[in-house]
C-alpha cells in the first residue's frame, strides 16, 4: 500500500561478494544439511559414475569404428552393442540412484530449516516483528527455503558432478590428443573470466529480486488484512495501482536478471562452438598428417559432445547457486538477529506467586526514537500490592500500553526494573513469567479457532476436553459476560473466524478478556478491556471481575471513569512518570491533570445547560 519505496530493515543489499564469500555463506547450511551429507555424497558418487559411464560410451564406439568396422569385420558388433547397452542401463541406474540418495534428504533439510525459522521467529521479540514487514518473513519461509532445497538436492550435486565430468572429459581429451585438448582448454578461459564478472553482477540483482518479492508479498498481505478499509473507501483500484508499480519494479529486476543470465549463456554456448570449429579443422589436418586415426578423431568429437551439456548447464547452475546464496543470506538475516529478550542463564522460579508487581525507576524508549526525545517512560515508580487492583490512566499516547507490555517482557525496560514478588522479571524464564502474568490487549487478537480454544489458550493442560476444562471455560466466560457464545451456531465450539472477525467488536473483546481470566494468573494486566462494551454490559463485567480481582493483582488501563471504578487505586501516567497515585476521589480533588484526563462531567454539564438554554 505504500506509495513510497518500501523499506525493509535488513537494507543490506549485500556488498558485491567475493567468490569465497558465496562459498562461506553456503557453508552455513552445513548444520542443517549434516544428517543428509552421507547420502548427498553417495548421490554425487552415483551421479559421477553416471557421467563417467556417459563418457565411456564414445570410447566403445571408437574401438568399434576404428577396429572391426573399418576392416568390415562384423564379429565385434554384438559385443560392442551389448557393452553400449550395458553402460546405458548403468547410466540410467546411476541416475535413479542419485535421485534416490539425494532428493528425499533434501526435503528433510528444507523442513528442518523451515521449522527452525518458525521457531526463531516466534522467539524473537515484538520489536523485531514491529520492524519487519510480514511479507519478508513469509517469502523467506516459503520461496527462499524452496530454493535452498532445490539447490542442495539438485544444483549442488549437478554442479559438483558437472565440474568433475568436465575435468575428467578434458583429461580424456588431452590424453587422446594433446593438441586438440589444449585448443579446447584455451578456448574455455573466457568462461572463467566471465564467471567472476557474472557472480558480482548477478548476486546483487538476485538479492534485489528476492527482497522485492518479499515486499510484494507484504503488499498482498496488507491488501487482504486491510480489505475492510480498502472497501470502505473504495480504494481497491488505488491499491492495485501501487501494487502494480511494485510488481513493475520486480519485473524490471527480473529482466535485468535475465540479461545477466543471457550474458553467461552466450559465453557458455559460444566457447564450445568455437572450440569445436577449431578442433575440427586442426583434427582433420592432424589426421591428414597421419598423427591421428579417423577413429580417434571420431572419438574425440564424441567425447567433446558429451561435455557440451555439462558446460552449458554451468550457466543455470551458477545462477541457481547465487540465488541460493542470497536466499541463504536472507534466511540467516533472521537467524542471526540477536534476540534481545531471552531467558536468563540461571532462571529463578517463583513457586507460589503472591502477585506483588513493582515498577522501580523504569525507563523505556523505543529504538527508533530520536536522541532529542526524552524517554517515553522516564522513571516510572509504582507498586501493586498483592491482590490490589490498580487503574492506569493517562492521555492517548502517554505510554500506558507500553508500560503494560513491560510486565511480561514483550519489551524490556531500557533502565530500572520491573519486579514480581521482588524478583526481576528478567530473572524468570519467559514462559514462567507469562504464566504468572496474563494480558488482555487493546485489540482482541483472537485466532481462527473455536471460542473454547481461544479462551483456554493460556491453559495448555486443558487442551483435552475434561470437566475441569469445561468448568474453567464456563467460569471465564461467565466473568467476561460472554454468555452470548452459547447462542452461536455451535456454542463454544463455533469458529470465531480469522482474528475473531465473525464476532462483534464487543464480543471479541469479551472473549479476549475471558482468555486472560481463564489463564488464572497471579497478575492480570488488562489494556482498556471494556472500551467496546455498552454501559450495561460493562457494569455486569465489572461486577463479575471484582470477584476475581479480589484475590488477583491487576493493572487495568482505563480511559473512562466507569473502568476506573474497578480499581482500588489509580495511577496517573504523565510525561513518562507516575505523577499521582490514590483513590479516584482523592485524585479528582488533588490532581488537575487527572481531572482533565478523566472527567467528562463538566463537559456534560456545560452541554446540558447549553441545551437547556436553547430550549428556553
Amino acid at each position, binding site marked *: 500500500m505504500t506509495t513510497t519505496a518500501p523499506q525493509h530493515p535488513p537494507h543490506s543489499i549485500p556488498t558485491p561478494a567475493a567468490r569465497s564469500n558465496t562459498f562461506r555463506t553456503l557453508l552455513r547450511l552445513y548444520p542443517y544439511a549434516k544428517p543428509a551429507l552421507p547420502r548427498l555424497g553417495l548421490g554425487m558418487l552415483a551421479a559421477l559414475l553416471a557421467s563417467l559411464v556417459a563418457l565411456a560410451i564414445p570410447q566403445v564406439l571408437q574401438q568399434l569404428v576404428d577396429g572391426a568396422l573399418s576392416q568390415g569385420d562384423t564379429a565385434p558388433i554384438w559385443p560392442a552393442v551389448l557393452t553400449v*547397452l550395458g553402460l*546405458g542401463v548403468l547410466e540410467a541406474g546411476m541416475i535413479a540412484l542419485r535421485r534416490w540418495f539425494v532428493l528425499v534428504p533434501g526435503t528433510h533439510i528444507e523442513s528442518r530449516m523451515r521449522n527452525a525459522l518458525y521457531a526463531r521467529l516466534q522467539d524473537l521479540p515484538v520489536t523485531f516483528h514491529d520492524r519487519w514487514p510480514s511479507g519478508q518473513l513469509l517469502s523467506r519461509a516459503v520461496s527462499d527455503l524452496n530454493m535452498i532445497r532445490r539447490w542442495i538436492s539438485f544444483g549442488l550435486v549437478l554442479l559438483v558432478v558437472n565440474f568433475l565430468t568436465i575435468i575428467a572429459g578434458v583429461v580424456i581429451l588431452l590424453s587422446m590428443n594433446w593438441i586438440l585438448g589444449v585448443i579446447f582448454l584455451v578456448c574455455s578461459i573466457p568462461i572463467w573470466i566471465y564467471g567472476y564478472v557474472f557472480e558480482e553482477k548477478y548476486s546483487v540483482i538476485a538479492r534485489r529480486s528476492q527482497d522485492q518479492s518479499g515486499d510484494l508479498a507484504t503488499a498482498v498481505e496488507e491488501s487482504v488484512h486491510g480489505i475492510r478499509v480498502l472497501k470502505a473507501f473504495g480504494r481497491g483500484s488505488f491499491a492495485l495501482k501501487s501494487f502494480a508499480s511494485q510488481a513493475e519494479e520486480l519485473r524490471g529486476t527480473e529482466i535485468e536478471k535475465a540479461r545477466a543470465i543471457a550474458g553467461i549463456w552466450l559465453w557458455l554456448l559460444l566457447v564450445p562452438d568455437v572450440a569445436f570449429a577449431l578442433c575440427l579443422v586442426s583434427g582433420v589436418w592432424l589426421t591428414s598428417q597421419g598423427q591421428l586415426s579417423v577413429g580417434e578423431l571420431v572419438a574425440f568429437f564424441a567425447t567433446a559432445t558429451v561435455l557440451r551439456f555439462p558446460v552449458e548447464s554451468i550457466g543455470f547452475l551458477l545462477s541457481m547457486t547465487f540465488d541460493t546464496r542470497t536466499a541463504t543470506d536472507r534466511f540467516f538475516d533472521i537467524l542471526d538477529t540477536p534476540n534481545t529478550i531471552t531467558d536468563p542463564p540461571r532462571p529463578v522460579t517463583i513457586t507460589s506467586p503472591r502477585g506483588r508487581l513493582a515498577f522501580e525507576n523504569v525507563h523505556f524508549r523505543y529504538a527508533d526514537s530520536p536522541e532529542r526525545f526524552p524517554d517515553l517512560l522516564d522513571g516510572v515508580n509504582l507498586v501493586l500490592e498483592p491482590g490490589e487492583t490498580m487503574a492506569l490512566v493517562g492521555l*492517548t499516547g502517554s505510554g500506558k500500553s507500553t508500560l503494560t507490555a513491560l510486565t511480561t517482557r514483550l519489551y524490556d525496560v531500557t533502565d530500572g526494573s520491573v519486579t514480581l514478588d521482588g524478583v526481576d522479571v528478567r530473572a524468570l524464564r519467559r514462559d514462567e513469567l507469562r504464566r504468572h502474568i496474563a494480558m488482555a490487549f487493546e485489540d482482541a487478537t483472537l485466532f481462527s479457532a473455536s471460542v473454547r480454544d481461544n479462551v483456554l489458550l493460556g491453559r495448555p493442560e486443558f487442551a483435552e476436553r475434561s470437566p475441569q476444562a469445561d468448568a474453567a471455560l464456563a467460569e471465564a466466560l461467565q466473568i467476561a459476560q460472554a454468555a452470548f457464545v452459547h447462542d452461536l451456531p455451535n456454542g463454544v465450539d463455533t469458529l470465531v473466524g480469522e482474528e475473531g472477525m465473525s464476532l462483534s467488536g464487543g464480543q471479541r473483546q469479551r472473549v479476549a478478556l475471558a482468555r486472560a481470566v481463564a489463564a488464572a494468573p497471579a497478575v492480570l494486566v488488562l489494556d482498556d478491556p471494556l472500551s467496546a462494551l455498552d454501559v450495561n454490559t460493562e457494569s455486569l463485567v465489572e461486577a463479575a471481575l471484582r470477584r476475581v480481582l479480589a484475590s488477583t493483582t491487576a493493572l487495568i488501563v482505563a480511559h473512562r471513569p466507569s473502568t476506573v471504578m474497578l480499581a482500588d487505586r489509580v495511577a496517573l501516567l504523565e510525561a513518562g512518570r507516575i505523577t499521582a497515585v490514590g483513590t479516584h476521589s482523592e485524585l479528582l480533588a488533588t490532581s488537575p491533570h487527572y481531572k482533565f484526563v478523566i472527567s467528562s462531567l463538566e463537559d456534560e454539564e456545560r452541554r446540558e445547560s447549553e441545551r437547556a438554554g436553547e430550549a428556553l
Partner: protein
Amino acid sequence: MSVIGVEGEERLDYTKAESAQIRRRSLRLLGSLLFPVRWSVVVAMLVVVVSTAAQVAGPALIAYGIDKGLPALLEQDWVPLAATGVIYLVTGITGALLIAWYTVLSARISQAVLIDLRKRVFLQTQRLSLEFHESYTSGRIISRQTSDLDAIRELLDSGINQLVQGLLYMAFTGIALVALDGVSGLVLLVALVPLLALTRWFQVRSQHLFRQSRTASASLIVQFVETMTGIRAVKAFRTEKRNEGVFGKLVESYRLVNARVIQLFGVFDPGLILIGNVTVAAVLLVGGFRVADGQLAIGALLAALLYTRRFFDPMEEMAMFYNSYQSAAAALEKISGVLEEQPGVPDPVTPVDLWTSKGAVQFDNVQFEYQADRVILPHFSLTLEPGQTIALVGSTGAGKSTLAKLISRFYDPSHGRVLLDGVDLRDLHPKDLRRAIVMVTQEAYLFSGSVADNIAIGKPEATRSEIEAAARAVGAHDFIVGLPGGYDTDVNKRGGRVSAGQRQLISFARAFLADPAVLILDEATSSLDIPSERLVQEALQTLLSDRTAVIIAHRLSTVAIADRVLVMENGIIVEDGTPDMLISGTGRFARLHAAWRESLV
C-alpha cells in the same frame, strides 16, 4: 459438491469429469494470459527455431568435415575443410547470440504474463466480498498470490525455454537423423512409443500429488501468517511450543507430498534416459552391420549415433519442464478457481450514476443474516433523512455494525433493498457509492507506510496541506508532528508504531479527508482519552452539519450532537426519536442514559 470457484478446493478425490473441468478452466486462463503476448511468443519461437537449427547443424558439419574434408585435404585441397570450419564457427556464433537474445525475450514474456496474472488476482481479491474473505482466510488468498505464483513463475522462467528449445531440438535432430539415415530414424520412431507411455504415467500420478502439494503449502502459509499476525498473543499466552507442533506437522505433510513427487520424478527421469540409451545401442546395432556391409559411411554412422544421443540429451530438461508444468498447472487450477469466484456483492451491470448525493439512506423491507439459519437483522424498514446526524446505540452484539455494513455495502441484504437517494445500492456505480458513503470501521487498520499515506487513503490525490488540514480538524496534528518523522513517519505494519488512540485518530482523519455525503463512524472514538474525544466531538459538530452521519457509540456523550437516536436490541430498532424526547421518556434509552450518567464522575 461442485468445483466451481474455490469450492472443493481442498478435496483430493475429484472425479474424472471434475478434474477435466478444472484443467479446462486453468488452460483457458493460461490461454488468456498468453494471448496478449502471442506476437512476442511467435518471435521468440522463431529465434529459437533458427538458433536451434544452427546448433543442430553441428554434427552434420563434423561428419562432412571428416567424410569430405579429410579426403580433399589428403589431396592438398584445403577448401572443403576450411569452409566447413568457417561455417561451423558462423552457425555456432549465430546460435549462441540468438539463444542469448531469446533468454531476454522469454523473460520479457514470462514477466508480462506474471504481472498480468498478479494484477488479475489482486484485483479479484479486492472485488470479492467480505463474506468470501471470511471463509477463505487471508492465509490462503496470500498463498494463492505468493507460493502458487512462484510455481507458475518457475515454469515460465525456465520451463518454457526448456520446452521450446527441447522440443525443437528434438524435432530438428530427429529430422536431421531421418535425412541422414532413414533406418536409424525408424529406430528412433519406435523408441517414441515407450517414451509417450512413460510420460502419460507420470502425468496421471503427479497431477494428484501436485494438487495435494498446493493445498499443503497453503495450509502452511495460513498457519505462518496467523502466528505472525498474532505474535503478541502467541507470546503472552505461551503458545510457541504448541504452535511449533502444529506447524511442524504441516511442514511434515508438505514435505511428504514433495518427497512423493520427487520419488515419482525419480522414476520418470531415469526411465527416459534408459529409453535413450537403449535406442543408441539399437542404432549402433542396426548401423554397425550396414557399415560392415559398406552400405553406410563411417561418418554417417557416427553422425547418426551423435544425433540419437543428442535427441535424448534434452530429455532430462524436458522431464524437468514437465515436472514444473504439472506443478504450475496445479497452482493455476487453484488460482483460476479464485478468479472464477463470483463476487458475493457484485458490481452492477448497468450502473446508475449519482454525481452528487444528498445522503438520503433508506432501508426498504430489509432482512439480513450472515449465515442462513441465524437472522441478525429481522425484517425492517428505516429512513435516514439527508443531513441528519443519527446516533445508533444498543448493547454489544445487537447488530449496529451489521446495519452500518449494509449501508456501506460490505454485504447485500438477504431481502429487501438499501437505497441511497432512491437508488438501490446494488445498482449504484461503485465509484459513486464509495464517494458518497464512507465508514470508519470498528477496527482501525493502518497500512505500513507513512502517516500521510494512510490519511491519503481517504483521498489519494490530496495535497500535503489537505492532509494536514484533515489531521488538524480531528485533533491528530499535534501528535503527528511529535512523531520522529512527522507526517512521513512509517507507522509499521498495522500501525504498530502508534498507540491505539492515535490509530483511531488517523483513521478518523482519513474519513474526514474523504468528505462523503454519508459518514458512518463505528466506535471511532472508543480508544480515545476523554480530552481527545471531546476535541473530536467538537470537530464533528462542524463536520457533520451538512451531511448524513451514523454514529455508533457506547459512550453516550456522542448522543448530544445527534438529531436522532436509534436504539437497537437483538437486531431490532426498539426506540427512535430525538435525544431529548428519549431521555425524558421512560424507555430503554432513558435508562441507558441514566446508567451512563451514573458512570461519569
